[in-house]
Structures are given as structure tokens and as C-alpha cells.
């Protein structure tokens, strides 16, 4: 005879406690802040959805959000194809493969703020090699003065820093394809493009999905590089969502709106990842015709 009781709950209690302290309690603190106006430790007023409403009406947020979306989209559109192209061009085996992997992976080892500092100096028009060279070529370039220059610099910096991650993932995906596929394709008379389209791309689907999700989440949370480069300027050209949040929470000490926005920010990332994941899962499955 089977016994029915709730003893199983005790077995998952350790996990519940761990998750509670690491995720649920901090999150609930934010929720707590987001629905109250805390004037002093002894004086707080429940305000309901008020902070959410005010944050949603904030035109600074709208600006930061659209800049953020354009930036993340540009990151994906550049880094994913570029990463796949580099992975395809890399040698498959031997010492050349090892050397290429080490060289490609180097940028990944550099901390965010160092990357920001490197490009901050690299791009200066007086002492920076890049900035000086571009100006010497007759193109006016100044990331502290021009919004577009600053924006492009942050994008190039991110491409330089993070495309290697896409390369490594795509390379791993390519190496896992058995030789028989390439041999069968040769016998079938397939072109180079057909090999890529019908063998390499489908076989890389899973790793590319991971690459897209990682690059989307990371780029959506970008903070350090624009902060080091121009502090979000000029004006607010490189003020992305994280900068906006920090300005609210630390700069102006508006904890209520900052907490409300944190929750919205969190939900946006969750939503986008879900949509991307579902879309890529569907891609290349399900019957045609």
C-alpha cells in the first residue's frame, strides 16, 4: 500500500532555502521598494503602482530603451554572422587551429573596464592610434563630441570584445559535424553554399541559439564600457538602460522608481529571451508543404 504524505517537501527544503536567499528574497526587496515611498526608516507609505506609472511615462527611459534595442540588434546582426564567418575560415586541426583559437580567445580574457580604457585611449584623436589615424585620413572622428562617433565606438568595442565568444561556439559546432556529411555532399554534387546552408547551418543551430541568447542578454545589460568611455555621453547618446538605472538609483537616490524600473528591465530581458528561444526552436523544424 502506498502512503501519501508531504514528507517529500522536506527533501527539497535545502534547495528552497538556497534559492530563497540567493534570488527570491533580494527580488522581493526590490518588489517591496517598488510599491512604497520610503521617506525614512520609520516612515513609509504604500503607493501601489504609482512608481511604475511614473517610470513608464519617463521620456528619458523611452530614449534609453530605444537606444538599447537598436544597440542590441546591431550587436546580434554584426557579431553572429561575423563569428560564423571567422569560425568557417579557421583551420580545422593542427597547431594552426590551436594558435587561431588562442588568438581569437584573447579579447575574452580582458575585463570590461580594461576594454573600455583600452578603447578610450585608442580612440583619442591626440594620443590614440585609432583616433589619430582616422582623423589623419581626413575623416572627422571624436567620440567625446559626436554622438554617432561615441555610439559607433561602443559598438566596435563590443564587437571586438565579444565576437570571439560567437566564434568559439560556432567553431565547436562546426567541429562536431562528422566527415561523412561533407563526403556525402561532395558525392551529391553540392556547392559550397549548399554545404553551408543544408549541413553546417542546421548542425550549428543549437550553439548559435546559445550564442544569440548570451549576446542578447549581455549586450542588453551593457554598462561598464560606455561608462568608462564617455560616462553615457555625449549628452545621453550612449546612455543605455543600465546607465539610466544607475543614475536613478545611485545618482538621484530615487529608490522607488529605480526598483520599479528594475522589475520592468528584468521582465523585458525574460520576455525577449523567451521569444528568441521559441523562434529559434521553431526555425528548421515542423513539416513543410
Amino acid at each position, binding site marked *: 500500500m502506498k502512503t501519501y504524505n508531504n514528507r517529500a517537501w522536506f527533501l527539497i527544503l535545502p534547495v528552497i532555502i538556497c534559492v530563497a536567499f540567493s534570488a527570491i528574497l533580494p527580488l522581493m526587496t526590490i518588489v517591496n521598494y517598488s510599491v512604497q515611498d520610503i521617506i525614512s526608516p520609520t516612515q513609509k507609505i504604500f503607493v501601489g503602482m504609482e512608481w511604475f506609472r511614473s517610470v513608464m511615462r519617463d521620456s528619458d527611459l523611452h530614449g534609453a530603451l530605444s537606444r538599447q534595442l537598436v544597440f542590441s540588434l546591431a550587436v546580434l546582426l554584426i557579431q553572429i554572422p561575423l563569428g560564423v564567418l571567422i569560425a568557417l575560415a579557421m583551420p580545422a586541426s593542427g597547431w594552426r587551429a590551436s594558435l587561431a583559437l588562442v588568438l581569437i580567445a584573447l579579447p575574452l580574457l580582458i575585463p570590461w573596464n580594461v576594454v573600455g580604457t583600452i578603447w578610450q585611449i585608442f580612440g583619442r584623436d591626440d594620443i590614440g592610434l585609432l583616433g589619430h589615424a582616422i582623423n589623419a585620413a581626413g575623416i572627422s572622428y571624436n567620440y567625446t563630441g559626436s554622438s554617432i562617433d561615441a555610439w559607433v565606438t561602443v559598438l566596435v568595442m563590443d564587437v571586438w570584445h565579444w565576437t570571439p565568444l560567437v566564434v568559439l561556439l560556432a567553431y565547436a559546432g562546426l567541429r562536431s559535424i562528422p566527415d561523412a556529411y561533407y*563526403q*556525402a555532399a561532395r558525392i551529391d554534387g553540392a556547392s559550397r553554399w549548399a554545404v553551408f546552408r543544408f549541413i553546417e547551418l542546421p548542425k550549428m543551430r543549437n550553439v548559435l541559439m546559445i550564442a544569440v541568447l548570451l549576446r542578447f542578454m549581455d549586450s542588453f545589460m551593457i554598462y561598464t564600457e560606455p561608462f568608462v568611455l564617455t560616462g553615457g555621453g555625449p549628452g545621453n547618446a550612449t546612455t543605455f538602460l543600465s546607465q539610466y538605472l544607475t543614475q536613478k538609483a545611485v545618482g538621484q537616490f530615487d529608490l522607488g522608481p529605480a526598483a520599479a524600473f528594475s522589475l520592468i528591465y528584468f521582465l523585458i530581458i525574460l520576455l525577449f529571451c523567451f521569444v528568441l528561444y521559441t523562434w529559434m526552436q521553431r526555425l528548421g523544424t515542423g513539416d513543410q508543404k
Partner: protein
Amino acid sequence: MARIELQQLAHAYRPNPTVPADYALRPMTMTWDDGGAYALLGPSGCGKTTLLNIISGLVKPSHGRVLFDGKDVTDLPPEARNIAQVFQFPVIYDTMTVFDNLAFPLRNRGWKEAAIRQRVEHVGAMLELSGDLKHRASGLSVDAKQKISLGRGLVRPDVAAVLFDEPLTVIDPHLKWLLRRKLKEIHHELKLSLIYVTHDQIEALTFADQVVVMTQGEVVQTGSAQDLFEQPQHTFVGYFIGNPGMNLLACTVADGMAGIGGHHFPLPAAVWQALEPLQHSSGGQARLGIRPEYVECLAAPQDGSLPATIISMRDLGTHYLAEFQLGANRVAAKLARSAGQPGAMAWLHFPPQRTLYYVNEQRVA
């Protein structure tokens, strides 16, 4: 349709091979007839896949020529040869339907869509894939996928030979049997040359008209199942084919007599004639080969019989599998009835017409 000729073909992965061990494939000259079913049989790493890849053009041989119907194709890439190949693991294009998979080689060759449809439907029906043509290939079972791999070869009407590289390894045993029968049917219907690589002797012997046995990069014998069983030309063929393989016993030969473990018996005149000229080079040493199926066990000593001790006697239902100690040799035998308990004495008799002699691994008589 094509007759495949290999002229002085050899392959080494390193440049400038000197000793035989440098070769992945040792020099060989062979002709495979149009429309034949051939099996390349040998243990893993014996060079049979290398040979297959040379014929399909995936590997360019370091020495020698490959001819299809007298035309030299050694330097042609695989897509320019009228060859199809089926690999160990099914190769299918995951994102395509079964129809598109089968149509792929034709589309790559610029066929019109109407002609493609007709051809694919014909081949699909032959492989019993008609019902699945609209389905995505990635969702099918392994045996259906392997049929698609085969189908991509068969849709091309110009294909002269289909090469198989251990195609049934990943298939369930009962489906293996069905697929092998399907292959036979297609062979009869399309009169294609089939070359089939395997390390499974049952698969090779049931599938092929001619079996090419290879070991260490060398072809040691080509023949029918019966030839390989009854007339192994090389000791490797003797013990690789058959279950258990041929008994190979070290023996001395001198003055028309053979000796095993101190016991002597006369050699037939024809055998001694063949062995005598080799006396110097072999130092009077030879190997006697006899299939376990032909070993006779006597209850009492007889002229020419050899005393042995029974080591084991297993009842396998249809027959007894016995093992004997004969001098320094172990002898396996398949017997109709038990010859006694382990430890007991027995007298073995090797029928002269079933007994073969080998010097330096090659059959002499």
C-alpha cells in the same frame, strides 16, 4: 554501368613508402565486373574503407590508377564520377523533407523540376518511402534514414556503382535483415555494381557474389563464400572466416611424413610434391589447416589418427563444440555427438581431402 579496374593501386598516407608497413593499402591489381555484388571483408583498420574512398574519389591514391570501363578516373573528383556512397551513419539533410533529400543530387545537377518529381517518386516507391516523401527527414527512424542515404545515390540514373561503408552497423538486427533483402532486390532490378565494406563475415557472405578478404592493407583472397570456406588461400582467411575459425596447427614435414606433437602420419603424394621444394626456405616447418567442421573424433586409435585430450565439450543444441589438446596445439571441432568428458582421451582424424597446408601464411597444398 561500369567495370571497375584497379591497376597497381596502392596508397600511403606518408610520402615515399619503402617497406610494406608504410602502406595503408599495399599494391594491388583487380578487376570488378559490371553488375556484380562485391564485399570487402576484413577487420577494423585493414584498409577497406581507404580502398572504398579511393574508388569513390574521396581519397586520391598515392600510386596506381583507377579505371571505370577503361576510362581513367584517378584524378576525377567524386561528383564527376558516376558513383554513390552510403556511409556507416545515415547522412541526411536535417532541414529538408524526404522528397527534397532525394531530389538534392538532381537539383545540384540542374535537372528540371518535373523530371525530378518523376524520378524521386519512382525511387521513393522502390525504397518503400512513398508515404514519407512529404515528411521531414530528421524525424524518421534510423533504417528509413539509411534508405534515404541510399536513395540519394539511386535517383541519379547515371550511377554505375553504389559503395557501402558498413551501412548496417547502427540498424536493429531484424531491420538489418529486411534492408539487406531490399538491397538484393535493388541489385537485381537496377543491375548496379555494389561494393559493400564490412567486418561482419555473415553480412559479407550472404550479400555478395564475390568476397574480397583484406588484412593489413593487403587483399589476401577473392572468391565466393564456398571458396573462402573450403579453399582459404591464406591463413588469415582460414581463421577469420568461420565460427570458430580454421584450426591452424604447427607441424613438421619431412620425407613425405607430417608430424604434430611427436606423432607422425603420411602426407598424400600431391601434398608432399608441393611441400618438398620449400623444405629449404621453410626449414621443414609448415602449418596444417583444418576446419572444425571436418575434424573427426574416433573412440579408438586408427591408422593416421592422433591422440588428444578433451579440454571441453559444450552442447550447442545442433552440435557439440569440442576443444582438444593436441601436443602444443588446441584443436576445435564441431561434432555430432559428445566424445567424452573433459580430461578423457580421444583420437583425432583429419580427412586428407579437407586438410590444407600453409607455408609463410600462404597455402601450398
